[in-house]
C-alpha cells in the first residue's frame, strides 16, 4: 500500500533521515521504533508532504506521492496525528473535528464520521462545544486521533500517541488503535513505548540516527535481544 524507497530528508544541510526503505501493507499495523532524534517524526512529516525529500521516492497505492502538496496527500487518503497532538486549542472539539475533515465536502458523510468518533470517545461528544485546550492529556489524544480519522483515511499515521499519558490511558489508546485496524484502517505507528507498540504491530522497523537498523514481525521483535536491551529496559 505504502512504499518508501531510499528516502533522504534533510533540515537545511543536515540529513535527518539518511536513505530508508520500508513498506506498509494494506490492513497492517506497522510500527517505527527508535530513540529521540532517530528521525521517526521526520519520516512521517515527509510522507505527509510537510517536508520535501532530498532524494528517494514515496509510493502509495501505485501512485508517486513525493512532491505533492500536503493537502493533496490528505485527499489521497493519508492522515496524520502529529507528535504532541497539536490540536487547535482555542477551537471547540467540533471545530477541530471539522478541520480534520477539511478535504471532504460531503456534509452528511462528515456528520456521520463525527458521530462515529463521538461513539468511540463519548467524552468528546459530551463536551463537543468546549475548547480543545481545556481537555486532559488523554482526552486531547483521543481528539487528535479522532481529528485525523475525520478525513476517513486509508492510512492513519500516529506520532507517539502515548506521549505523556498514564499507563491506563495508554492502554485505552492502544485498544482504540487495534479497533481501528479491525475496522479496516491501515496504521503506521511511531512510538517510544516499544512494549505497547510491538504487541499490536504486524511489523516493526527500528530506526537509529536516520537509518533502519533492522526489522521483523512485531512478535519477533518483542523477543529480540537487541530490542529488549535498548527499548524494553531489560539487561
Amino acid at each position, binding site marked *: 500500500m505504502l512504499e518508501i524507497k531510499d528516502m533522504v530528508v534533510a533540515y537545511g544541510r543536515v540529513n535527518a533521515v539518511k536513505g530508508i526503505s520500508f513498506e506498509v501493507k494494506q490492513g497492517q499495523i506497522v510500527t517505527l521504533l527508535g530513540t529521540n532524534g532517530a528521525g521517526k517524526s521526520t519520516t512521517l512529516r515527509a510522507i*505527509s508532504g*510537510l517536508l520535501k525529500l532530498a532524494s528517494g521516492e514515496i509510493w502509495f497505492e501505485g501512485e508517486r506521492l513525493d512532491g505533492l*502538496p*500536503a*493537502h493533496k496527500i*490528505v*485527499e489521497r487518503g493519508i*492522515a*496524520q496525528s*502529529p507528535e504532541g497532538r*497539536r*490540536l*487547535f*486549542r*482555542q*477551537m471547540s472539539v467540533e*471545530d477541530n473535528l*471539522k*478541520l*480534520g475533515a*477539511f*478535504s471532504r465536502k460531503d456534509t452528511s458523510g462528515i456528520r456521520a464520521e463525527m458521530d462515529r468518533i463521538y461513539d468511540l470517545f463519548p467524552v468528546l461528544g459530551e463536551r463537543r462545544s468546549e*475548547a480543545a*485546550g*481545556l481537555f486532559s492529556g488523554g482526552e486531547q489524544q483521543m481528539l487528535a486521533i479522532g*481529528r*485525523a480519522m475525520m*478525513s476517513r483515511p486509508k492510512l492513519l499515521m500516529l506520532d507517539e500517541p502515548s506521549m505523556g499519558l498514564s499507563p491506563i490511558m495508554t492502554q485505552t489508546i492502544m485498544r482504540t488503535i487495534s479497533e481501528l485496524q479491525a475496522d479496516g484502517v491501515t496504521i503506521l505507528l511511531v512510538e517510544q513505548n516499544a512494549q505497547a507498540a510491538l504487541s499490536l504491530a504486524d511489523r516493526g522497523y527500528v530506526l537509529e540516527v536516520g537509518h533502519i537498523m533492522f526489522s521483523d514481525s512485531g512478535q519477533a521483535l518483542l523477543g529480540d535481544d537487541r530490542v529488549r536491551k535498548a527499548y524494553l529496559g531489560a539487561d
Partner: protein
Amino acid sequence: MNTVIPDRIKIAYRYPARAVGAAGALLMLVSIFLPWAYGTAALDDMSYYGAPSPLQLCFGVLALTVLALLTIPLVGKQRLGKWAKVLAWNTTAKTASITALITAAIAVTSVAVELGGLLNVEIGGWLVIFGGVAAVASTLFLPDSPEPSLDEVKSPKWLQILAIVVLMAVALFAAAFALGQVDAGAFLTFGSFLVAVVMVLRQFGVFGWLGMAAAANNRVLVISAFVVAFLFPFTQNGSNANMSIAAQVLIFAATALGLNIVVGLVGLLDLGYIAFLGAGAFTAAVLSESAYSHFNFHPPFIVTVLISGLVASLLGLIIGAPTLRVSGDYLAIVTLAFGEIFRITMNNLDGNDGPDITNGSNGIPDIPDLNAFGFNFGQPHVILGIDIGRFANYYWLMLLVIALIIVVFTNLNHSRIGRGWVAIREDELAAEAMGVNTFALKLLAFAGGAFLAGVAGAVKAHHDVSVTPDQFIFLESAFLLAAVVLGGMGTVMGVLIGATILKLLPEKLRFFSDYRLLLFGLLMVVMMRFRPEGIVADERRQLEFHAEDEELAEEVEEELITHKAHLNPEREVFEL
C-alpha cells in the same frame, strides 16, 4: 489593591469607611452646584453657582452612583436578597470612585491648562477632587465582592430587548454629545466619563448580563445598531464638520475590517495595508471625471468600485504570491516595504520619472461628487425638517458598504474557509497536516482583504475630493493595525469600536497634536497590559490570553472540593 489593607482592619472599619466614602460622594455632588473655574472659556463653562453645566451633571451621575453603591447595602443582606450576591457592590463602589476621581482630575487639569494655571480652578473643582480622594481612600477599606453573576439571573425577553434598544439610544446620544464638544478638555472629560460608566457597569455585573442578552438577541442587537447608526446624521442638524468626521470614521473602519481578516482571522502581519486603500482611491480618482485625470474612461460608480477593489486585490496577489509561502516575519517586512514603494511610485507617476497618471505629489484634485443610484451625493436634502448635507450621503453609503462587509465576514467566519483561516492562525503546520491548503487560503485572505480596502478607497476618493500620495503614509497602516488590535482581533464589533476611537481621538484632540502619538503609545501599552485581547474579545481567543486563569480556576476548584467541609465561616460577614 485589596491586599494592601489587612482583612482584620477592613472588618473593624467597614462602617466608618462606608460613612467617609458616602461623605466624599456627597461632597462631589455638592461641588457640581459650585463653580469649578474662574473663566467661562474652559470646558463647557463651569463658572456658575447653582447651575451645573452638562459635564458637571456627568459628575453628579458618578457621585450619585458611588453614594448609592455605598448606602444601599446598608439595608442589610436580608432585604437585598439575591441582589446582595449577583451584583458586585463593593468592588463597583471602588471602581466608580477611582474612575470618578480620574475624570475629575482630567476636568480640573483641563481647566488649569485652558485658562492658564491652577489659580483658575474655583472651589467646586477642589471640592470634587477632595470628595473623590475621600471616596477612593474609603472604598479601599471595603472587602472585595465576589464576581457578579447577574448574567445567570433569568430575565424576560422583552426586558433584554428593551435593554439593548435603550443602550443603543444612549450610545447614539452619547456619540452625538461627544462629537458636539469642540473644546478638547471637554471632549476628554466626557470620554473619561463614558469609560467610567462602562467600567462601572461591567464591574457591577450589568455588562455580563447585557452580553448574555446581546448573544441571545443577536439580530435585535445588529439591527438596532444599524438603525442607530443610520439615525446619527439626524442628530447633527446639518453640521458638516461632524458628519465629515463620521464618514471618515466609517471609511477607516471598513478598511480596518479588511485588515481584520488578514490579521485577526488568519494571523498574517500586514504593515503596509494602507497601500490597498490608496490603490482603490487612485483607481477611482483616475476613472473619475476630474479634469486632472488623464484617462477618458468614466464608468458608472458600481463599475469603478469593482475595478478599484480588483486593482487592490491584484496588488495583494502580486505581493502575497511570493511571500505567503515563506514564514510570517518576511511578510511583515515585505508589506512594510510595499507600503512605502506604493507611496513613492504614486509620487513618481508624474510624467517625469514615469508615465503621467497621478500628477505626482499633487495627486488628482477636483474629483466630482458621486453620481450613483440616480442620486448626486453632493446635493444636500432636507428630511423631516432636518438638513442632511453632502457628508451624510457618503456616511450612509459607507454604512451600506460596512453592512455588506459584516454579512460577508460573519458568514465566512463560520464557514469552512473561516475555520481554515483560524486553524492557520493557531498552528499552520497542523492545519497543513489536516489537509488545509494553507497557501491558497492565505492568498485568498490577502486578496479579499485588499479588495475591501480598495472599495473603501473608491468612496474615499470622492469623499475627500482629492487624492494625493502623502495620504498613504506608514503611520496610517500602523493606525489601522492599532484599531484592529485595540478593538479586538477577529471581531467585527471590536474593530468598529477600535476604528472609531482611533479616528475620532486625533480629530478631536488637534489641540494635543504634538503629543498625539505619545498618547496612543500609552493607550496601547496600557491595553496590552490589562486587556490584551482588545476591547471586545474573540470567543476563540479568550483561552490564548487567559490560559493561566483557567489553570488557576481549576486549582481553586480542586481546593474547594477538598476543603468543602470547613469553609471559612468569616466569609459570611465579608460579603457586605
